[in-house]
């Protein structure tokens, strides 16, 4: 209440004694009524502040109380300490926050200077980065034997750049051992089991030499003035690879990092994990590559479907080779990790990628089908996928016999039949020569018309085999054969 209000309240008491009553409830049953003047007096009294105790009274009183009750300390002693502590904690926190901001500021300044330059023109910088590819090609073609005797500083081994490049060099040796003349018989299979000391020694020797080689690679990169690239790309981890792609542009990362870094760095890490019987970690590295593949694909950086297919197929092929070569090590992996790998492999399968784009574009599919089959029948084997994953049967059944029928049928029925038979062949081989027993349970009416069209143009042994392999139901099978035979007879007439 202000002084003015207080004055008005007193004036009201004097001048208007007949004002309204105010009721104050005491409890549920009792209440008292006050006139406006009484209420004003009440308010007036309420506004008066009760006196305060002298500032030292509390201390005196509690000191006596503490002495009487055997408390051996001064009153409010801890509270003072507490306040002091709180204050010092706040100051400490303030100092920490200041330091953090200073560090962030310095880091940003450093990034601006090194990444973009003070007068950096983004276009020209990107362009200069794109030339890195040609420089990396030069590195790729460098004879690795030249690098072996480079005397590097061992302290540099702790440098993350050096470490990454060491991995890079390891990958180079492992993936392309024939370039390494220092090893008499550098076959990959020979290294894998590590059954005796000689193998272990051999591997160690390779890794040591690769470490030295990595320093040489680093030197070459420095000479090529691509330090900025090496810094950025070698800091790639499973965690930041995607943000890195966002930062530098997917196209750039795809062309540079994807081919030169991801496929080699992560795959080489996977290889090393397999060597150490760390199958779970190896699978994690493989999954990273596969997810990155999917990431790049979904960013629609490919202008050509064929390019996309080739990249997908190449990478998948490489991954499957790694998996196949280490299938003995897969027994160390957890079932969860195996399931994850299976899932991402299915997602990365070129057929699944096609599914999203190729419907209605049968010509494109037929052009690229052969390369896919090439993948699945390389080296005289029908499939690369180890049995532990039991992957290919699922892939083939889902991708080929379900989805890809229609566009291909419309476009080229004969080619379709050829593929269909190849699929069956693959399935049989993957099933140890046994007939694949997960046959089609029923023929969809719409689907059947396409089948029918194919059957009638196929030579007799093929269509019978085909029908028998895909139709499980006996009645349905007989019906389909009759229909096809009837159609063939009609045509022959």
């Amino acid at each position: 209440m202000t002084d003015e209000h207080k004055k008005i309240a007193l004036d009201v008491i004097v001048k208007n004694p007949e004002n309204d009553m105010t009721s104050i409830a005491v409890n549920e049953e009792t209440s008292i009524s006050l006139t406006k003047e009484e209420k004003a007096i009440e308010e007036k009294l309420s506004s008066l502040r009760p006196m305060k105790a002298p500032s030292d009274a509390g201390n005196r009183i509690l000191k006596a109380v503490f002495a009487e009750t055997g408390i051996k300390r001064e009153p409010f002693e801890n509270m003072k300490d507490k306040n002091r502590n709180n204050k010092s904690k706040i100051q400490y926190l303030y100092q920490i926050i200041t330091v953090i901001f200073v560090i962030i500021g310095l880091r940003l300044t450093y990034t601006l200077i090194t990444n973009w330059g003070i007068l950096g023109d983004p276009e020209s910088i990107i362009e200069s980065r794109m030339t890195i590819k040609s420089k990396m090609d030069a590195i790729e073609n460098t004879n690795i034997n030249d690098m072996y005797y480079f005397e590097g500083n061992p302290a540099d081994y702790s440098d993350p750049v050096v470490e990454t490049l060491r991995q890079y060099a390891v990958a180079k040796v492992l993936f392309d051992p024939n370039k390494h003349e220092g090893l008499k018989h550098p076959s990959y299979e020979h290294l894998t089991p590590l059954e005796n000391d000689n193998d272990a020694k051999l591997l160690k020797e390779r890794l040591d030499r690769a470490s030295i080689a990595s320093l040489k690679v680093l030197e070459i990169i420095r000479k090529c003035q691509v330090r900025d690239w090496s810094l950025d790309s070698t800091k790639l981890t499973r965690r930041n690879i995607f943000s890195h792609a966002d930062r530098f542009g997917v196209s750039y990362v795809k062309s540079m990092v994807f081919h030169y870094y991801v496929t080699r760095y992560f795959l080489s890490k996977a290889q090393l994990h397999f060597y150490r019987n760390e199958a779970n970690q190896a699978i994690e590295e493989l999954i990273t590559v596969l997810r990155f593949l999917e990431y790049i694909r979904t960013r629609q950086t490919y202008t050509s479907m064929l390019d996309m297919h080739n990249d997908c197929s190449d990478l998948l092929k490489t991954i499957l080779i790694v998996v196949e070569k280490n299938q003995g090590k897969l027994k160390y992996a957890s079932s969860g990790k195996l399931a994850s790998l299976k899932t991402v492999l299915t997602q990365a399968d070129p057929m699944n990628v096609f599914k999203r784009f190729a419907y209605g574009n049968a010509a494109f599919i037929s052009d690229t089908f052969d390369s896919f089959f090439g993948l699945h029948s390389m080296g005289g084997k029908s499939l690369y996928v180890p049995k532990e994953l039991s992957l290919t049967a699922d892939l083939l059944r889902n991708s080929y016999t379900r989805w890809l029928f229609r566009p291909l049928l419309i476009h080229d029925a004969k080619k379709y039949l050829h593929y269909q038979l190849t699929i069956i062949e693959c399935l049989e081989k993957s099933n140890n020569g046994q007939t694949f027993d997960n046959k089609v349970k029923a023929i969809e009416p719409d689907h059947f018309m396409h089948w029918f069209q194919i059957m009638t143009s196929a030579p007799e042994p093929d269509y019978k085999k085909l029908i028998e392999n895909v139709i499980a139901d006996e009645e349905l099978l007989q019906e389909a054969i009759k229909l096809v035979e009837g159609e063939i007879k009609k045509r022959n007439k």
Partner: protein
Amino acid sequence: MNKEQIAQRLEETWLSLGDGLYSYVYSILKSSADTEDVLQNVFIRLARSFENDRSISNLRPYLYKMARNEAIRQMEKLKKLPVPSEDLDSSSIEGSQLLIEEERDISQQLKSLPSEQSDVIILKLFHNLTFKEVAKITETTLKTVASRYRYGLQKLKGIITGIKTKEKYHD
């Protein structure tokens, strides 16, 4: 409860209720030394309660009641009858020096009321206690407290109106 916890509770209690208790006891005893003696006893008894882990459901009315009883006991001990205090805020620098004239008048008139009525008004209005709590402290019924409050305000109104009328008449 250990000694340290008791000490901490006592300190917290003083910080939250010390001023109110002091002014209330002072309003009865009109002596700083006596007030401190009384509050010392009150806090020693409170410390004993904490030591015995006695649960106190509502600390504020409990302490006011204890302080009031101690103050009355002290008064009897000193054979000192309550006399109208010179000023409610006499020991408060902020109080006596900054009170405007009307405030001084009304607080002066409060002292002229019977002690039962002024006691209720002081507890209710200066210390923000409920009627129920005041009844508990003064050990009377709720109805008695309410009527003392009502009569007290009525009397104050009468006194103030009389003064004003007299002033007007003189003018």
